[in-house]
């Protein structure tokens, strides 16, 4: 890597991406459940009553078995209370299923629009001899080559092996501006179903039918391929354990109570059991997982597995590409420093002249900085920037101006008989050391020797607000590492300004991979994003690898998430969504367990007060009758699921802060809240339920 970076070789085809996702993301999920949502989810919820499906959530299976048992008991010995309990036990199961169905339903709309892309089109397949044949897009196999011209849809996922084209990918990404796709390099991947707007390309197909990117996206957003994540499985083990304990508690209570002369009916014991087992979290657990994936989809990030979302919450180190994430990605003119003997205006004028032909953001930023434009002299020829000359400028009769890399321009000055004053070197190295890029401006007038006029200080501009986000990351215990191809001095300056913890300068893809391995050996979880083929190994090695949608197929295959907006800043959002998912799980588990205390205060006195009147003291909620108390507890237990569905889908409120702060806040809210809420809820329900005649 050279000491002095020159202008980037070609202007970026992409627009600056700072607020990219704000423009077109789906509006954030609304908290409340609409009636339409519930209606749509209801058939699914009833289908899920199948015990074979419920085995997945043992807690709800126990509720269903209880419901079957109370149904039988109520048929044998009908009573108002029996039927009330039975009805609400069934409702408990349905509510639990409803949560999952609603969560799944949210992905359905997105899936439908994706399906539209899959209408069968005809493809122009190339034969070995170069002639074309028309085949159905579904008949394409991996390795086939197809021709696509302007106005046609790309028949399948593939890489461009010939040509360049602008492609409308709005159906996949929601981004209306067309993007450039070209053969070779890191922008060669195209997605099936997207529309070619201009030119002609030859695409080599990279996926077989049914396994394309869109196919996988549909499966993901619909949740049909959802596999339970490691933490979800572990939590399920704990919930099942609690369930077994309470089954034993209630089962043995029958005999203990019998001995004590306080005989209990199985109906009441089943009601007690259902109230005690962690139904709230049991019912909402899978909905939380689906909703977490959904929240990512809403930010245009597709997670290939729930496991990756969970891993995002655990990330310790974020590897962030400097360009596009930390800085706006293009250097901007910050200052023009004339050499001794040249006025500022003189240097500025030359800089403007040299930049007239320069369409790069750097060139335009010089015009912006100077703040005035001027027409070029007549008969001027523009000298375009090229990677070999490393300078641009203008030649007209009697006047030539150049601006560019210090070494190139000083060489040009000497070629044209000029001298380079020593102070130029001083200024240039000062700028370079401060992390900026120096551009030397020189002119060659008539037959005078060429001379240096000044130096333009180009600076990488750090994004607004990025420093604050890194501070938040630090508070969360996440280390940020900036990855850049710049030299160490430049990197250090930007790292300092942006507030990242570490940086890796002059980074090659191999360096990135080695850094990830090193962090992982230390037990840390690493997240990164990348787009190029040479990023693929690092993406695969990282615990969370977000591939940019503009990237190559190899990169997308290697990562476990794809960002459709190709916005590297998204990595931070991904981590936050992962954390929010885990917090939601923990909060609802705590809430569920804390609820049990109040339920004991409702049910135990109700069960035993006939045999032991002194236990009425424990009826601190002053519930009207034993029957009403038990039914109220059961109803509360069912309703709390419905009430919490929106929270499960939206996720609990999350602000980045340290573990201690998060814990204190959530314990207060969901632990203490879970302790108090049921006392109020059951009391209120009792006031209504006690009015039911015959209870």
């Amino acid at each position: 890597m050279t000491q002095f970076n020159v202008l980037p070789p070609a202007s970026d085809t992409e627009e600056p991406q700072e607020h990219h996702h704000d423009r077109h993301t789906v509006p954030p999920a609304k908290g409340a459940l609409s009636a339409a949502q519930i209606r749509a989810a209801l058939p699914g919820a009833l289908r899920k009553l199948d015990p074979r499906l419920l085995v997945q959530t043992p807690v709800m299976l126990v509720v269903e078995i209880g419901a079957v048992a109370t149904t039988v008991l109520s048929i044998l010995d009908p009573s108002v209370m029996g039927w009330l309990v039975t009805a609400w036990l069934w409702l408990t199961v349905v509510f639990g299923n409803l949560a999952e169905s609603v969560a799944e339903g949210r992905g359905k709309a997105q899936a439908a629009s994706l399906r539209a892309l899959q209408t069968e089109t005809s493809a122009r397949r190339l034969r070995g001899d170069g002639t074309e044949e028309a085949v159905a897009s579904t008949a394409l196999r991996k390795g086939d080559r197809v021709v696509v011209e302007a106005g046609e849809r790309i028949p399948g996922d593939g890489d461009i092996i010939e040509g360049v084209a602008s492609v409308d990918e709005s159906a996949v990404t929601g981004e209306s501006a067309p993007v450039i796709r070209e053969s070779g390099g890191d922008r060669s991947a195209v997605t099936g179903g997207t529309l070619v707007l201009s030119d002609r390309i030859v695409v080599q197909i990279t996926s077989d039918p049914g396994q394309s990117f869109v196919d996988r996206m549909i499966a993901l957003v619909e949740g049909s391929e959802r596999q339970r994540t490691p933490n979800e499985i572990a939590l399920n083990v704990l919930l099942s354990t609690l369930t077994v304990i309470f089954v034993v508690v209630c089962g043995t209570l029958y005999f203990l109570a019998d001995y004590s002369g306080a005989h209990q009916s199985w109906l009441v014991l089943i009601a007690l059991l259902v109230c005690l087992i962690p139904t709230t979290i049991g019912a909402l657990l899978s909905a939380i997982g689906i909703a977490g994936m959904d929240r990512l989809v809403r930010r245009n990030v597709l997670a290939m597995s729930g496991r990756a979302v969970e891993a995002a919450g655990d990330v310790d180190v974020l590897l962030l590409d400097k360009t596009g994430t930390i800085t706006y990605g293009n250097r901007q003119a910050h200052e023009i420093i004339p050499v001794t003997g040249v006025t500022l205006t003189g240097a500025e004028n030359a800089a403007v002249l040299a930049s007239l032909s320069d369409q790069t953001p750097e060139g335009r930023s010089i015009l912006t900085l100077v703040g005035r434009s001027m027409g070029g002299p007549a008969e001027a020829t523009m000298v375009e920037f090229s990677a070999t000359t490393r300078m641009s400028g203008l030649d007209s009769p009697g006047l030539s101006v150049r601006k560019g890399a210090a070494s190139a321009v000083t060489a040009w000055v000497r070629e044209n008989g000029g001298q380079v004053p020593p102070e130029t070197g001083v200024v240039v190295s000062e700028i370079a050391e401060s992390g900026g890029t120096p551009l030397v401006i020189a002119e060659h007038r008539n037959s005078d020797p060429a001379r240096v006029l000044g130096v333009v200080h180009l600076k990488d501009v750090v994004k607004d607000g990025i420093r604050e986000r890194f501070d938040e990351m630090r508070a969360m215990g996440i280390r940020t590492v900036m990855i850049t191809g710049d030299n160490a001095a430049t990197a250090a300056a930007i790292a300092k300004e942006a507030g990242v913890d570490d940086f890796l300068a002059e980074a090659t893809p191999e360096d990135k991979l080695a850094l990830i391995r090193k962090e992982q050996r230390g037990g840390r979880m690493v997240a990164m994003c990348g787009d190029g083929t040479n990023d693929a190994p690092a993406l695969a090695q990282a615990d969370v690898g977000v591939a940019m949608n503009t990237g190559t197929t190899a990169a997308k295959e290697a990562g476990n998430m794809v960002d459709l907006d190709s916005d590297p800043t998204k990595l931070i959002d991904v981590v936050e969504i992962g954390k929010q998912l885990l917090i939601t799980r923990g909060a609802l588990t705590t809430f569920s367990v804390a609820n049990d205390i109040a339920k004991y205060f409702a049910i135990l006195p109700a069960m035993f007060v006939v045999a032991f009147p002194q236990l009425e003291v424990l009826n601190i909620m002053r519930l009207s009758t034993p029957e009403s108390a038990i039914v109220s507890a059961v109803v509360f237990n069912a309703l709390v699921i419905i009430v919490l569905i929106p929270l499960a889908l939206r996720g609990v409120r999350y602000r980045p802060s340290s573990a201690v702060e998060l814990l204190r806040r959530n314990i207060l809210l969901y632990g203490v809240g879970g302790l108090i809420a049921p006392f109020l809820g059951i009391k209120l329900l009792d006031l209504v339920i006690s009015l039911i005649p015959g209870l």
Partner: protein
Amino acid sequence: MLDLVYILITLVSFAGLAALVGVIDRRLGEPADTDVAPTQNEPETEPQAVSR
């Protein structure tokens, strides 16, 4: 006679406990080796992210 019964209960219980050891060992075993074992072909010197 009763002695035999109690000794048998004891032996069966401990056999059961030993079986529990076996079952746990087989079912849970060693954790999947997710370690990144240092390999020979990895460069000796690693890029060091520089701390500010």
